[in-house]
């Protein structure tokens, strides 16, 4: 996901009359609350494209507290997924820029004030950053929606406030990172120091650009590390904007460096850098493997991976069907289906299966697809043409393999990368739509008989990121929560992503945990200090 080699040429060719210049032209306000395109209605017309209420201010790399061009002078285009139109050109960082950024981060760590100031002072800077995020919430949200196609209402009302909340959470940790005093087998005094690990490399994906930024940057900085972060080439803009705010909040130069660019160049350089002490990656399982390999071939840097998933959502026979339908629907369709932990295998008990299909289909048909800047829109465009085409081909494979297409299955409209909310029933375990991560608005519904059956089938996946369980029976809930080999089990809820709740994968969904107290360990070294005791009063 995050490392993709090819930017489709056709995207720039698809640029229409709404050029970047006209998108930025003043005097046109966004037309909130105009007619809403439902899934079954006609496509967006050109007049309906809403002008994002924000301007792009930063397109250069952020190294050592300065916005700078790429060493090569190269840039790459970033597009509006609503239309495929160009938003702007962004500096394209590659190996040389990574080297510059790592050098700055190294110096900031080895000699700079950041790890040397008190944890409370660090926390105050992070708190100040959170206050600035809050102040600029709507601009940040607009930029995020423009670059990624995420519905603006959600970005502005949920995601950016949640990002702010995450930074406040990590700020509160900074002065509560405790080592231990440790019992010894003899007359020794033993203590553990929890030291920052050093320079952290971080590579984040395009599906939740700023949320992922918060998950990565928050704990790394709270622990006293310095960071080089590579954003996804699809969504480079918001990280640059907020990182500027971070410096306004008092972050010393070199502590947080942002490189826009591509995976095979910038990403690979970061993962294989000899002076980077830790790498954290969120993206596809395929790329995760490459990261791990590059780390092992270079300096054996510690690796955290948060990768793909094919998460089961299990609806038991006692479930309240209407609620289950709604939750299962949002579990897969939220964020255009572009969630690593999307509940993309909906297992439904045979006794409630028919009713569930009927209602899920109806719910999908009611889903409101359209310009993400429009009020009430639930689903925007997919991120780019490649993803768009990949999802459509997955849908074709579903049809060819004999699953029943209940609704959707086509492109939505004629412009941009919108896809109809799609529901398949009669899905079998071995079909590609039940095994592959589609990363799109495609629900695959499977029927199950009993708990043993569903546990075995739910676990029959190389992924293990999350699971949903819908039941009011405490025995069923207890059995499932322990039996599912996944990093998060949501019971009668889904996508509950509090700052304090750890998140991460079993199996090929990754390693390590993000958020919560657990994620601090990713950014800390543990140093044991031992010294003899002469005549101690006790041991």
């Amino acid at each position: 996901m995050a490392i993709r080699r090819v930017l489709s040429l056709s995207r720039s060719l698809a640029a229409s009359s709404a050029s970047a210049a006209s998108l930025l032209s003043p005097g046109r306000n966004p037309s909130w609350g105009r007619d809403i395109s439902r899934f079954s209605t006609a496509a967006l017309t050109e007049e309906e494209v809403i002008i994002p209420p924000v301007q792009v201010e930063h397109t250069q790399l952020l190294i050592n507290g300065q916005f700078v061009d790429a060493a090569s002078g190269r840039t790459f285009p970033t597009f509006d997924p609503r239309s495929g139109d160009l938003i702007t050109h962004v500096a394209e960082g590659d190996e040389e820029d990574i080297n510059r950024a790592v050098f700055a981060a190294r110096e900031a760590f080895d000699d700079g004030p950041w790890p040397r100031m008190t944890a409370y002072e660090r926390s105050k800077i992070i708190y100040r950053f959170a206050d600035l995020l809050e102040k600029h919430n709507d601009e940040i949200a607009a930029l995020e929606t423009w670059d990624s196609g995420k519905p603006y209402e959600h970005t502005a009302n949920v995601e950016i406030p949640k990002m702010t909340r995450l930074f406040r959470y990590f700020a509160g940790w900074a002065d509560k990172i405790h080592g231990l005093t440790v019992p010894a087998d003899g007359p020794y005094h033993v203590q553990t120091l929890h030291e920052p690990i050093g320079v952290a490399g971080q590579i984040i994906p395009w599906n939740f650009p700023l949320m992922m930024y918060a998950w990565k940057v928050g704990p790394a900085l709270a622990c006293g590390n310095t960071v080089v972060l590579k954003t996804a080439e699809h969504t480079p803009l918001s990280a640059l904007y907020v990182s500027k705010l971070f410096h306004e909040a008092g972050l010393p130069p070199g502590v947080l460096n942002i490189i826009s660019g591509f995976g095979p160049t910038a990403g690979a350089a970061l993962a294989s850098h000899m002076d980077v002490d830790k790498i954290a990656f969120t993206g596809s399982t395929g790329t995760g493997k490459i990261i791990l390999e590059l780390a092992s071939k270079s300096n054996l840097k510690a690796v955290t991976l948060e990768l793909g998933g094919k998460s089961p959502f299990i609806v038991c026979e006692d479930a309240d069907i209407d609620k289950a339908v709604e939750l299962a629907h949002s579990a897969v369709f939220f964020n255009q289906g572009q969630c690593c932990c999307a509940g993309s295998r909906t297992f439904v008990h045979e006794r409630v299966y028919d009713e569930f299909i009927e209602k899920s289909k109806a719910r999908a048909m009611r889903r409101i697809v359209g310009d993400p800047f429009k009020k009430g829109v639930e689903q925007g465009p997919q991120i780019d043409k490649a993803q768009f085409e990949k999802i459509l081909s997955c849908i074709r494979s579903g049809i060819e393999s004999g699953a029943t297409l209940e609704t959707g299955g086509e492109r939505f409209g004629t412009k941009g990368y919108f896809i109809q909310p799609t529901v398949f029933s009669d899905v079998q375990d071995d079909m590609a739509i039940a095994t592959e991560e589609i990363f799109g608005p495609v629900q695959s519904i499977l029927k199950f008989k009993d708990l043993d059956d569903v546990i075995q089938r739910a676990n029959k996946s190389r992924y293990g990121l999350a699971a949903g369980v819908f039941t009011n029976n405490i025995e069923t809930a207890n059995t499932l929560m322990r039996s599912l080999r996944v990093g998060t089990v949501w019971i009668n809820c889904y996508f509950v992503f509090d700052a304090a709740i750890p998140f991460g994968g079993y199996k090929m969904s990754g390693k390590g945990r993000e958020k919560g107290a657990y994620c601090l360990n990713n950014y800390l070294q543990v140093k044991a200090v031992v010294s003899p005791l002469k005549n101690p009063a006790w041991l």
Partner: protein
Amino acid sequence: MTIQSNGHSENPIKIPKIKFTKLFINGEFVDSISGKTFETIDPRNGEVIARVAEGDKADVDLAVKVAREAFDQGQWPRMTGFERGRIMMKFADLIDESIEELAAIDAIDAGKLFTSGKAVDIPSVANMIRYYAGAADKIHGQMLKMSRPFQAYTLREPIGVVGHIIPWNFPSTMFFMKVAPALAAGCTMIVKPAEQTPLSALYYAHLAKLAGIPDGVLNVVTGYGSTAGAAISSHMDIDMVSFTGSTEVGRLVMQAAAQSNLKPVSLELGGKSPLIIFNDADVDSAVNLALLGILYNKGEICVAGSRVYVQEGIYDEFVRKAAAKAKTWVVGDPFDPRSQQGPQVDKTQFDKILSYIEHGKREGATLLTGGKPCCEKGYYIEPTIFTDVKEDMLVVKDEIFGPVMSLMKFESVEEAIERANNTRYGLAAGIVTKDLNLANRVSRSIRAGIIWINCYFAFDNDCPYGGYKMSGFGRDNGLNSLDKYLQVKSVVTPIHNSPWL
């Protein structure tokens, strides 16, 4: 010692107008039910600053009733830890906006140095609130490892309505040392400040309301220990009492708790803390540390280093230098930035300290320096050092709570440990040495809640402290202090066919 002024000198700072003198109950400032008031005195000159509502049992009952309601039905324990933390952050910001006024209030009410109040005490309480604000969303229970097929976990629930009884020596710091973790935990509370220093607590109550702390969550009842304090400790509807003060009163609080509803008690009491200085110490800096240890806040601090043990190799030099240094110590109006020591809090304390000094002289201790009141007005006492003291003298055994040091000589480390532990108290200790082995050994050997090696008074938000022995139990500061405001509830349910246990 240098005398600067006596409280009537030209004050560089305007004395603030006192705005809050009533009880704070359920978000309102109210008169006491009896209508009674008491005087609060400026210790610089013995003059009345203001008359303050005198709360007693009836007022405590009322405060408990609203705190109970705020806990049982109100939003405070029902909002998320993060939301509580946000309100607490606001509270801290409001304090930051009033630093000067608050420092001035503590200076006139408690005789505390205005400059250090402004630079240290008041900003520190804002920082302390922020520390606990950041802790409010990090209170974790545990999943348990059961020996049978059970799923079990612990919930750490707020304990309920808390009573805080706080002393006069650090009116602001003590207020928040108790209130901040209790707020973070989700408790509601009644605070009884000391009758000597009721003013800043009422000011904080006002700021709490502005910050958005819901009515009934934080109540302040000013009044006396024997009436209001006793009513809190023996109240049947208070779930926990946290007390800082003397060992004698601590005993009464615990007794009242035992005789009423067996509420848990946390006590932070008196001390007679040793400072042990070894031969390898740098004498000049050891002298500075020792003087700071006993003279800081005029010796009115429970962790004062009131017993100073100096190893024989450097003893004579230490005595000489300590005497010289004590004579340059500046006693004077707490508003004067040159002052290092203000007046004792009130006449009772002042008289008590002087009588201890007289007693020490009668018992045969040598008065190295000081020993007398100074300034013609107010409760100022000279920095006082006794030498040639014996372990069984009252000045070595009792907590004097004034600027009076007992300076003693020792030979071996074993002797130092034994004598340092020869006390019914166990609050703090200081060690001055460059020898790692000595430092490690003595740290483990001293029976006290906090050990400062080559430093003293190194308090920190994250650093718990509290007493061994008759210095009390329970810890303030750090995440440990949350424990006393939380209940632990275990929840257990059977599980079937679990793939692991």
